[in-house]
């Protein structure tokens, strides 16, 4: 596997990159802070047993003008990438977003508009090699509109809808879209929040994601219990959601 990973320095992205490195995948890191990426690259090289060389290119999800060049660089360094993993994004709790609409605008732009634009660049790059896997971390928060995640959930709902459409449009031509829908994961992004039942660890999520990439699964809930939880939540009538204070 030859994978470009956007957002591999932290949380779930770090765990996915490590799981890929330990399997011997060739990896190119993309992210905002090049110095930090370089430290992560060294970590991945050692976790592969010294078998891979990991390079990094600066790429800020808030600056779409840099997407094309960053993916080009990754493609060149890997001599033709076949997998793109996107784990970067912004998160805010509902009250913080409601109280800071500029942050809300940024979050919606990064999580939806810019991620979609990045995916389009990635899709073109992968299709230029005849296909490949585009793995994007969305969220279970996008499954239903719910009180605690009105704004963040909306950004992920839009992203998930896009990924489903992308899968339908390009699957026959060799693009495998993997939409990762994690539940609550204990990372620095969720630091300070009280973990709900079924909260997952990044390593557990990474194992599920790597398996989904290998199988080309279009949707993966992780930890897996969330597939059942969200199945029930999707079926809940609105009046029951109101009663449950959802």
């Amino acid at each position, binding site marked *: 596997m030859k994978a470009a990973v956007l957002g591999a320095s932290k949380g779930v992205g770090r765990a996915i990159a490590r799981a890929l490195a330990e399997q011997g995948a060739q990896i190119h890191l993309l992210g905002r802070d090049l110095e930090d990426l370089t*430290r992560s690259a060294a*970590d991945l090289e*050692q*976790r592969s047993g*010294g078998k891979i060389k990991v390079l990094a290119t600066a790429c800020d999800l808030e600056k779409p003008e840099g997407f094309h060049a960053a993916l080009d660089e990754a493609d060149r360094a890997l001599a033709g990438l076949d997998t793109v993993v996107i784990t970067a994004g912004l998160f805010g709790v509902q009250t913080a977003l409601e109280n800071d609409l500029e942050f809300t605008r940024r979050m919606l732009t990064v999580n939806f508009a810019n991620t979609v634009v990045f995916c389009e660049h990635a899709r073109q790059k992968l299709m230029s090699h005849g296909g490949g896997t585009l793995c994007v971390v969305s969220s279970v928060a996008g499954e239903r509109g719910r009180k605690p995640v009105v704004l963040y959930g909306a950004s992920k709902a839009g992203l998930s809808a896009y990924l489903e459409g992308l899968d339908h449009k390009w699957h026959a031509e060799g693009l495998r879209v993997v939409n990762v829908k994690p539940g609550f994961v204990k*990372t*620095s992004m969720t*630091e*300070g929040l009280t973990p709900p039942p079924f909260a997952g660890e990044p390593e557990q999520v990474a194992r599920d994601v790597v398996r989904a990439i290998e199988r080309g699964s279009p949707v993966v809930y992780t930890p897996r219990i969330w597939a059942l939880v969200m199945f029930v939540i999707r079926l809940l009538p609105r009046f029951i959601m109101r009663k449950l204070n959802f």
Partner: protein
Amino acid sequence: MPKQTGLSGWGRTFVPGHETRSEDLVAVTRGASLSRGLGRSYGDASLPAEGSDQVVGTTLADRILSFDDTSGVIRAEAGLCLSDMNRLFLPRGFFTPVTPGTRFVTLGGMVASDVHGKNHHVAGTIGRHVQSLKLRVADGRIIDCSREEERELFLATLGGMGLTGHILEVELKLERIPSPWIHQETFRLENLDAMLRALKDSSDKWPMTVGWMDTVATGKQLGRGILYCGRWAEPSEAPQRVPKPQEQKIGMPFALPSGVLNRFTIGMFNRLIYLSHHKPHKTAMVDPYTYFYPLDFVRQWNLAYGKRGVTQHQAVIPNEAGPDGIRGLIELLAKLGASSFLSVIKDCGPEGEGLLSFPRPGMSLALDIPINENTQNVIDQLNQHVLSCGGRIYLTKDGLTRAEDFRAMEPRLDQFLAVKHKWDPDDRLRSAQSERLFGGHA
């Protein structure tokens, strides 16, 4: 009933507070008073001092920054878990030069405790193998220190319980091993004299030794136990495959009722362990996970001690005190009506460089004591005995020693506090333990 929320050490005595974790240790330690790793110290060493309700958790800062497979030198962020390091480097022919009895500790925590292991008599503490450290000191500066650079800060940090600065990065020389397997020989020993004699005799022949001891048995059987000797196997005798870490398939689902582990049940357990070693001498080829970390097999085994939790009293009794030093500890435990579920004895080699490093030449005895209303008295009396023998206790295990007792045991304390004061004149770096033991002088 004791509260079960907030922060606790491995002994599960909780205090109000929470961890703040981040991958960016440089940022998150700014202005913080204490860092902790995986919280495996038993008592209050990793708990916030009064007036603070948070500590930095380092576990997300766990990147390996470099490794040289010629020299075996690794540089990593302080939160790197030993379990991860073992898993990654065992297949490459390297292992940590010193390991404590659990793999669920961080590199930073190992340095702060200056941990020792079954090979202390030949390898010393982890500090001997640490080449340099990167610290955030109390005034916010980031300082590189080693034996050559800021030497006294470096030495005070080895075993300094995180009170000299937040450990950000550790450079450590790993041990090159001939194979990833251990040739183990175990000996059943019928009493304390036999155990002490065997420990001393085997230290010349074996690089790794440790004794499990039945501290509930009395009379002629007092101090009976099993001696575990080991060495890294040569390639010609070892299996070809690389062993994988044991999965923690068994876990304690909840805290047992306090009192389930009492002198009777502990006595039964100890007798079973002793009798299960039915031959006087056994030989086996074992993986390092089984050899070094037998308790890690059970997830959260500390819940067996119930909601009141457990403390560990680990003391080193100098050689000059002779066998009566250790015998006195065991007899005192019985006299006080207390008992230790798991008792471990180990002969220690020379004292390390760390200013508060625990081991010194002598016999170390670790006693796991379920906490009840009598435990403070038990610890006080055990400490009086340790003092009378000229010994000292291990801060990493302690949560109950009194300040005056610790000061009497530790002639190096003033030297440590002087270095700490130089780097932290306003006493910004503190823990519940430093406040308890050093008061306003920490």
